[in-house]
């Protein structure tokens, strides 16, 4: 009974410390447009400081200053296109001898916006390239998603991590 009374008194008291009933118009902020980050580009080198903005998934973490990335089975990146005509996709990657040598041949398939752009079989490890013309109908103005898929991956014995390839560059460029 006493507690109830105390609660009621306190509730009443709380209304004795009034908050404003209404508020004035505040100071008006300027609405001028500030700067925007530079938009993503059509290709990305893996030593670019903005690399993280391009990666969608399927990559292992990199150490500071690392200019390449280990990719898993299905690495995916986003690339921004303004014009769509006359482009080709070029990816530069490595299958290391020690890890991927025994796995060769490896087939790499490349998808652009979930549609197959092409596939290529690589019979020897080392520094490699995938180059293929990109049909205009596969592309969209703005963000395009590019995914690489290797049919065989190296499984690290120590921790079971699945390693697809080492990527160093990927992007659209004008056909030569």
């Amino acid at each position, binding site marked *: 009974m006493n507690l109830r009374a105390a609660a009621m008194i306190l509730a009443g*008291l*709380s209304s004795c*410390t009034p908050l404003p009933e209404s508020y004035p*118009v505040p100071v008006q902020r300027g609405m001028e*447009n*500030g700067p925007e980050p530079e938009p993503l580009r059509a290709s990305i080198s893996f030593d670019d400081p903005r690399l993280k903005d391009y990666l969608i998934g399927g990559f292992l973490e990199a150490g500071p200053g690392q200019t390449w990335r280990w990719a898993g089975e299905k690495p995916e990146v986003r690339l921004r296109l303004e014009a769509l005509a006359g482009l080709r996709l070029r990816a530069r990657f490595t299958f290391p001898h020690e890890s991927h040598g025994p796995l060769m041949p490896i087939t790499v398939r490349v998808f652009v916006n979930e549609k197959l752009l092409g596939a290529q079989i690589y019979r020897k490890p080392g520094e490699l390239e995938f180059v293929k013309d990109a049909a205009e109908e596969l592309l969209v103005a703005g963000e395009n998603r590019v995914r690489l898929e290797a049919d065989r991956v190296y499984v690290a014995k120590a921790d079971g991590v699945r390693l697809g390839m080492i990527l160093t560059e990927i992007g659209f460029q004008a056909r030569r």
Partner: protein
Amino acid sequence: MGAVFYILLGWLLAVGACYSFGAILLRGTPFSREETIPLRFVCGAAVYSLLTFFLGLCHLYFRATFVVLAAIAIGAAWRMGALKLPGGRLPALTCWQWRCALLISGPFVLLYLSNAMAPEASPDGSAYHLGLVARYFRGHALYPVNFNMYAALSQGMEMLFLGAYAAGRHSAAALMHFTFLLALPWLLLSYGRRIGMPNAGIGSALLVFASPVVGIDGISAYNDVAAACVLFSLYVVLRSMEDHPELAWVAGLLAGFGFAIKYTLFPASLLTGVWIVWRLRSWKPLLPAAAAALVSVVPWLAKNIVWWHNPFAPFFNAWFPNPNVQQWFELVYKKQMASYGLPSYWLLPIEATVRGTFLNGLLGPVFLLAPIALLALRYPEGRRVLLTAAFVFSAYPSNIGTRFLIPGLPFLAFAMAMALPRPAWLPIALAAGHALLSLPAVIPSYCHPQAWRLNKWPWRQALRIIPEEDFLRSRLDSYPMARTMEELVPKGRRVLGFNQVAESYTNTEYLVSFQSAPGGQMREIFLSALIKERQPTYRVRLRVLPTKSTAVRAVLNRTETGGLWSITELRIRNGESEIQRSPHWRLRANSNPFMVQDAFDNSQVTRWITEFGRTAGMYVEIDFGREETFDVVDLLQPNDQPWDTYHVEARDASGTWRKLATKIEPEELTSPLGMRRAAAEELLRRDIQYILIGPSDFGYDDIHMNAKVWGVEEVAERGGLRLLRLLPRDEFERVLKQ
């Protein structure tokens, strides 16, 4: 060793003061010698805590104050002869019983003492329990800290920490809690002796004392073990009161102190009232009990009324709307505390006793046998103990963390030990098994590796042979950044962060975004720069016939579950031109009026957001202060807001609100540009000069990659946490041109 001296000095002065106040208070009470010692400490702590509260209001938080206070208390008790122990003794324990109790508890006393004396590295202790204590001590006063909702909780324990902290800093405060950890099993043991069940007393004392979560909590600057100790003291007093009704005020004092330590101990006050009426068959003793309880309770409620506009802050915000904590936050917070991400409540017993993953800590596997406590129902004492446990555990569903079981644990343990009366050694054997399973070397064999527990005997750190700095850097991830802020952030500058850091180790003004409504607003501003769904990409035009009125309202028509109603900008038009906002205008909203200005500040990164949900009848109002003619109300909103269900109301000359026929014209807008810098400028305007952001926080990569666009400069990076300085406008423009 100088640090160790001050730690021990701070601790012993505070404990000495508490004990002395208790000795004065309990003069002439009928407790036995054994029970008197812990009861004096606990009751005296209630007085000491209250005095510290008032010392804070008088701006008297200085080291000398607490030394003088302790000297007065000890001197007065000595002069009054109150320190003399009473002659009444409890039935003696046998040599065998003493040996068991000491042999089993001994290693844990040493484990706990070494950890309590080691530098304070608990997450909440180093962040807000002692963070607030350090803040008050720095300011030499108890003052409102409205950007930290934990400052609104009752802080009876923090007041005790303050006394110890004044001389011995963090470890002295932790030792204060450790004292309750020692007093609690002592009380259980004594009570067992008093009721003729010494083995139940020993068994329950050891069950509680050796419990892993009790251990780590009790050596940290937390309050759960103190809460348990106060509650069991209350129980001891309530039982004594059956023969000595004059003890009602002591019961009231402890019930009130329970509330002052932890809101969730409110049921203890109810229990006291029920007990008095039930056992004494009289309403009379209620008066002294209630009066004594209110002495401890009222200061905290009054403080909240004045500083937080809500006596029960940070809860009950629906009853007491205020600008400091929002209702939706309270609901989300309560929901989180009631689930802890536990996949199923069926996992609760195993999580709370064995695994300790989700609920942060474990009681020990022996508590899986807790249902045997029901066997104690066959004894009258067992029924009383279990009834009390039920009262105490009634608050548990509101926060299911393992440590929130601690206040009820002594009662449960006592009932478990009572349930096993034959053979006589069985409760002690059970406790011995429990103690064995609770040794730091054994726990990892069954608990989750991340479970909150003690795993070392850090004597070298306790004695400061290994420097405090080294220990803290290895134990507290945020400690290096806390120290860096101390070095690099100038005095008077404020840092906004999205997670707790070891605030007690820095003097920097650090605001955690989720700890207050203004903090939450600033997080919204930050996120609005990055998340399209928070940006004003929709304009809902509410068109009415040209109307002359002194006030207008935009009213929501439909109630929807999920989501909050928000308006980035509200504009009034007459024909082609906007009616310019005027100093004569007064703005109101019937939900979250404290933020209504955010819809009228010409900023795209601030929004008025309702207190809770979207409900038909919610409105935003402009009182023009004179007659205006208008025909359009424009609502600039994010695209997740309703676009088809509004109407406009205007106030006529008689003061009556009239609903106007409203035509709704929604229009999609392009995303505004320059939001990053706009957000940075708005934060600067709100007196934030630095941002602390970690890898798990949204926007971590963006603000790093686009530092120039945001107008921020990275000042430091420690353990992944980045400290960024927001550049003032002129500096930003200069950097942009480079």
